[in-house]
């Protein structure tokens, strides 16, 4: 097992290296550059050239790359051109925000999606079912940013019951220990801060949950309908088990297998969807970091973010392989 793991980790290193070269080159081949963005509208070409030479961006790409690699090996991913903070500090600040949002959205999507899908299947062809199917169609079809703006319009502008955007009321002077604003208040005893953070979380989480919710509803519904036709359900019925037992122990349990696979897939998409949602709701997470980084050509920040994404991808793959290896010994090729 250990040998397998070591081998997989070693295999990942060249993958990441190639990726880092691609990311590095791609960024520098984009037209425009950080100096143009940094110096603003009034910069003369001379000033831009001068800043590029100060930043070392006029050196050959491979020279820049090896310098970058040398720093990365020591754990230094550089500092953001926009904020001057180390990109690791920036990511450390933004990461909890995105995770908080993604978890909230996932809880909503699963918590509402499974019961609705199940109920729709139980009332197949009736009004409830049709309404549910229609809702999911809309949920998948409407872009997040439109839905988000609509939510804000209704709940923040018209009804005034929820804040339109941001993570916390700016007049609340809250202490941030973990960066999970909903948790921080509980830890420091500032319950109003936690309550305020939850209120800020509702609308973006609903917007981000809309697509996975719709997908989960449809998969659950289809899966329950499938399972109901299965022979073992008929067998259970003929054995005279109660309807409740059949539904819970046989139908739902078996129907949830494909749903759990879907949830796994949707989690990855959630993080991608967070980029748009964060923009609409001014949610200060990784998505906002990425969007502003691209706009301002913040090379160090983008390099770190894209490599982080690649690393997560590689690690998840290894975990999947390990779980397969545990389940199926044949995978462990000696």
């Amino acid at each position: 097992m250990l040998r397998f793991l070591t081998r997989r980790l070693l295999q990942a290193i060249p993958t990441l290296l190639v990726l880092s070269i691609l990311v590095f080159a791609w960024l520098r081949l984009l037209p425009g550059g950080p100096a143009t963005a940094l110096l603003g509208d009034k910069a003369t070409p001379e000033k831009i050239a001068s800043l590029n030479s100060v930043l070392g961006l006029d050196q050959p790409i491979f020279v820049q790359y090896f310098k970058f690699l040398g720093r990365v090996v020591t754990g230094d991913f550089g500092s953001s051109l926009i904020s001057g903070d180390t990109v690791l500090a920036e990511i450390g600040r933004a990461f909890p925000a995105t995770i908080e949002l993604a978890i909230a959205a996932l809880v909503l999507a699963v918590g509402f999606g499974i019961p609705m899908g199940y109920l729709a299947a139980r009332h197949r062809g009736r009004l409830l079912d049709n309404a549910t199917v229609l809702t999911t169609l809309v949920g998948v079809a409407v872009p997040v940013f439109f839905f988000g703006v609509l939510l804000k319009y209704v709940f923040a502008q018209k009804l005034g019951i929820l804040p339109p955007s941001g993570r916390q009321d700016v007049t609340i002077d809250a202490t941030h220990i973990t960066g999970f604003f909903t948790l921080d208040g509980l830890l420091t005893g500032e319950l109003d801060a936690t309550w305020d953070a939850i209120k800020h979380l509702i609308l973006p989480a609903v917007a981000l949950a809309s697509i996975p919710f719709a997908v989960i509803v449809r998969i659950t519904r289809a899966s329950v309908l499938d399972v109901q036709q299965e022979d073992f359900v008929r067998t259970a019925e003929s054995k005279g088990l109660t309807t409740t037992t059949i539904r819970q122990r046989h139908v739902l349990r078996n129907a949830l297998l494909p749903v759990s696979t879907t949830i796994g897939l949707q989690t990855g998409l959630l993080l991608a969807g967070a980029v748009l949602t964060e923009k609409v709701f001014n949610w200060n997470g990784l998505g906002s970091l990425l969007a502003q980084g691209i706009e301002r050509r913040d090379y160090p920040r983008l390099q770190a973010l894209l490599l982080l994404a690649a690393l997560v991808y590689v690690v998840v793959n290894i975990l999947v392989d390990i779980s397969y290896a545990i389940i199926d010994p044949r995978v462990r090729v000696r």
Partner: protein
Amino acid sequence: MLPTRAVGLRRIALIGLAGALAVTTAACASERGSGDSASDTFIFGAAGAPKNFDPIFNDDGESFRPARQMFDTLVTYKPGTTELEGGLATAWTPSNGNTTWTFTLRQGVKFHDGTPFNAAAVCFNFDRWYNMKGAAAQSQMIYYGDVFEGFAHNEGDISGDPVYKSCEAKDETTAVLNLNKAKGAFPDAFGLTSLSMSSPDALKKYDADNVTQSGEAFTYPAYATDHPTGTGPYKFESFDKANNTITLVRNEDYWGEKAKTARLIFKIIPDENARKQELAAGTIDGYDFPSPADYNSLKQAGDQVLIRPAFNILYLGINQKNNPKLQDVRVRKAIEFAINKDQLVKNRMPSGAYPQDQFLPNNVPGYTPAVEKHSYNADTARQLLAEAGATDLTLNFYVPTEVSRPYMPNPVDIAAAITDDLKAVGIKVNVVQEPWNGGYKDSVQKAGKQDLHLLGWTGDYADPGNFVGTFFGRTKPEFGFDNPQIFDALSNADAQTTPDTKKSAYESASVLISQYVPAIPLSSSPPAIVVRSDVQGLIPTPLTDERFYTVTKG
């Protein structure tokens, strides 16, 4: 009593619904509009984070806005105008052909750390800037470099001769600044936010000059990130990066009128739509540069769209290098005659914009009705093209995308209107679109790939040299012409030492430029700032450098 078999099923369905209900009721139960901050806090929506808080290292509006509230300059501008008035200096007197400036300082002023503001502090600031070391630090001092041209020791690629010579503190309230040469930008440039006065003690204590470079980025010292110390109406409290919020508090010892609100908060909201919705929800009290397309809906919602006097220029640039036909002044004039500026302004610009026949806004000295006018006349345009033998003219028109500026709310729209006008007189146009930060500025200003292009400028202070000197003071790849007559006229105008001679020298230069048509001035547009209906006392200013200490709420 429910039959047991239904219970499990119901449970599943109800958990979700109960959750939804709980959230909704809870939200309703909480007091409406948690964003309704007390009337002693003014919350402004900013489009971006400041780079840092040390004015000398900044050159962008988002960094200047908080700095304007915390710092004062020696000379300042009368609110709502570009005219000068006393700031930390009550008088500023030039002598020796404008190479010496004597400042009489305001008495009894203290920095936020309690140390006194005096002549020694003024000289400390000037000396600090001039002696700044390190390519990293110098490369960040864009405005200082523009005005003072060089440092005691130029580092990196900086190679200007310093304008600054020395500074003497004659007594507590008299500081004398000696220059190596006169500059037309003075005294107006003394009001630049970049040249704000910082506390010498705080500068030393927090290692203010220590800008370092790590990899491709700059790291700023504690003074710039956490301890900016000026004399202004607000003091720095915190910059919460996790919540993207800058908090300033009232300076109770301010030498002038005390701030009306106890707290001033900048909430950073990069997305304009999000800013608009926060304003509507009342979680912010105002934001800057609303899109002209939103003016009506904002007003209908009861918000105040405050229009500033226009202080910018949009022009159609002409590059004479690639197409020899453009070196014929008749062709350049034909292009100007072909453009219907009145229609352009009416259809594509915000209300309050006006068509332009020269490169200065009408509130800057040097603006003159005497310029040679080429008002819209398609027949004249065709005739001139025929005379110049340029009836088969084809021009590459570079247009920026992904950008909106007060002088060009929507460049692609503006370019489309101009293209139609040019086609109407028989000029063929190839439109080349490039993203503003993704190559456009390089193509146009560095490589000079274009025949025509759209660009503009917002003034920093009411010195005509800041406009026309910047555009046509020397030969540039952007315009690709070499006209010593114009260059000399502009440098001569810049060297004038009295307001009257300066004004008339720039008027002559404006006339010269209008005869030569190095580019085509199109319009000047007023940028707006929007605040909620209960906000009073915000004075919109052409320099877009509003100070919020006069603002009241509710």
